[in-house]
């Protein structure tokens, strides 16, 4: 204090002992101390929420793509069944049905299942070594459809029933429709889940932000007194929450991506049975869009966390002017 005799120029002192330091960026302590924010707990909440959201997105997309896959599979093949009757007559009817099918536009092939093939199909139910000749087993013609072709099944069905009264056409349409409805249902459920998970995340961030502002009330007051605008103060909080959102989002998103990655990848390495085994979770492959969706969820979560905290700080500041 020995230099107080030199007057400052409107608050700016003249040069005193010690030259100014060279202007090199020195790390600035953050104005809102990170330790005053319930960071860990919020990271965990955000991670869990992102994980759930990612699972929902991945599973919904997987179900949708699998369903459409199955639908195109079942609709690429129709069957004509002919009730068993007199052997000779039935044989002729089967030939005729195959002929009608082959001449229908869009059909690539019509294959008459031999008695042996039919037997093999029925083996799981009736057992081996059974003489099907003794049983009134219907004969089957498998009709293959060109991919994307729109076959006039109504006309085919009419022609068949006109010429062969014992023939019936199964175009799997009911199956296909049911699969479609189920996939839509799953996607819709997924959207509802995403909305709920999003709301829960936003609420958690709102509470955490309010608590952080309350804890840092003294800091906020000093910032106000030295002339900080609300926008500047909000940015000090938002910085922390963006980090928390990004951390939680990445943890949750990575966990979900790893889970789906394992589902998709493990069978390729032969670690889990046969990939064609229908009980295997291979149908849960979310596809490339699923992984893109998970990355999107992480981004949205991080930004939503930051934005929510910003808006909450603004609102809270209005009450402690």
């Amino acid at each position, binding site marked *: *204090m*020995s*230099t*107080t*005799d*030199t*007057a*400052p*120029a*409107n*608050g*700016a*002192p003249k*040069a*005193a*002992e*010690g030259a*100014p*330091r060279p*202007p*090199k*960026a*020195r790390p*600035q*302590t953050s*104005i809102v*101390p990170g330790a005053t924010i319930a960071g860990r707990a919020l990271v965990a909440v955000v991670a869990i929420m992102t994980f759930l959201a990612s699972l929902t997105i991945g599973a919904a997309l997987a179900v949708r793509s699998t369903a459409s896959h199955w639908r195109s599979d079942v609709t690429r093949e129709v069957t004509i069944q002919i009730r068993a009757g007199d052997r000779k007559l039935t044989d002729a009817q089967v030939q005729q049905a195959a002929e009608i099918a082959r001449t229908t536009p869009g059909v690539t092939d019509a294959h008459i299942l031999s008695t042996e093939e039919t037997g093999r199909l029925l083996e799981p139910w009736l057992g081996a070594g059974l003489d099907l000749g003794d049983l009134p087993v219907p004969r089957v013609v498998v009709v293959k459809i060109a991919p994307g072709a729109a076959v006039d099944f109504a006309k085919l069905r009419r022609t068949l029933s006109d010429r062969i009264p014992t023939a019936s056409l199964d175009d799997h349409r009911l199956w296909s429709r049911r699969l479609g409805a189920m996939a839509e249902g799953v996607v819709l459920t997924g959207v509802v889940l995403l909305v709920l998970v999003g709301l829960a995340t936003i609420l958690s961030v709102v509470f955490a932000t309010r608590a952080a502002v309350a804890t840092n009330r*003294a*800091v906020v*007051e*000093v*910032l*106000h*007194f*030295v*002339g*900080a*605008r*609300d926008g*500047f103060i909000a940015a000090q909080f938002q910085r922390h929450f963006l980090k928390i959102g990004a951390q939680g989002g990445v943890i949750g998103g990575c966990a979900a991506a790893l889970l789906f990655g394992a589902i998709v990848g493990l069978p390729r390495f032969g670690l889990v049975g046969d990939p064609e085994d229908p009980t295997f979770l291979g149908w849960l492959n979310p596809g490339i869009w699923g992984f893109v969706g998970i990355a999107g969820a992480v981004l949205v979560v991080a930004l939503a966390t930051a934005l929510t905290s910003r808006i909450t700080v603004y609102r809270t*500041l*209005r009450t402690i*002017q």
Partner: protein
Amino acid sequence: MEHLVRFENVGLRYGMGSEVLKDVTFSIAPKSFQFLTGPSGAGKTTLMRLLFLSLRPTRGLITLFGRDVSSLDPDEVAVLRRRIGIVFQDFRLLDHLTTYENVALPLRVLGKEEASYRGEVTELLHWVGLGDRMDVLPPVLSGGEKQRAAIARALIGRPEFLLADEPTGNVDPTLARRLLRLFIELNRTGTSVLLATHDIALMDQYDARRLVIADGRLYVYD
């Protein structure tokens, strides 16, 4: 601008209590120096809070830098406060920031780069005798050092109006005399100073205008 500050029939009560300040009318001119005095509990801090917009009057009119304070939105309040330097009775230093960072805070909230004001802040810290305490956290500082850090923070933005609430209340008489000299020097360079104190001996050292609060009323002795 005729007045820096003008109070007209200002009254203030906290909550449902009786009025702490009644019919207060006075003005402060640019480049002026005045003491604000009165016994402890008279309402000095309350008047200061009205002056830097931390409290709004329950009645009456306050004009600050030509603006009616009741018409200001939060951003305008922030901008006006940048023209006022405040030294709090209890310092209000942020304990997690170093002395240097505390003093630099008014420049940092303007969005300035740290490198752009480092020289200025360092110089001011040397000038108040805290050159070797820059990187220390406030809890480690002595009462007098905290006082000087608080004063430096109030001065760094080159305010037109300096409010100091009992700035000598926590220091020994020698340092008190030096701080008073500092405020007088500051005033000579053009800053209006309002120094609240209940220390009669301090006021006797400098012949200046006195605003005295007694029983909620304010009396001016030019």
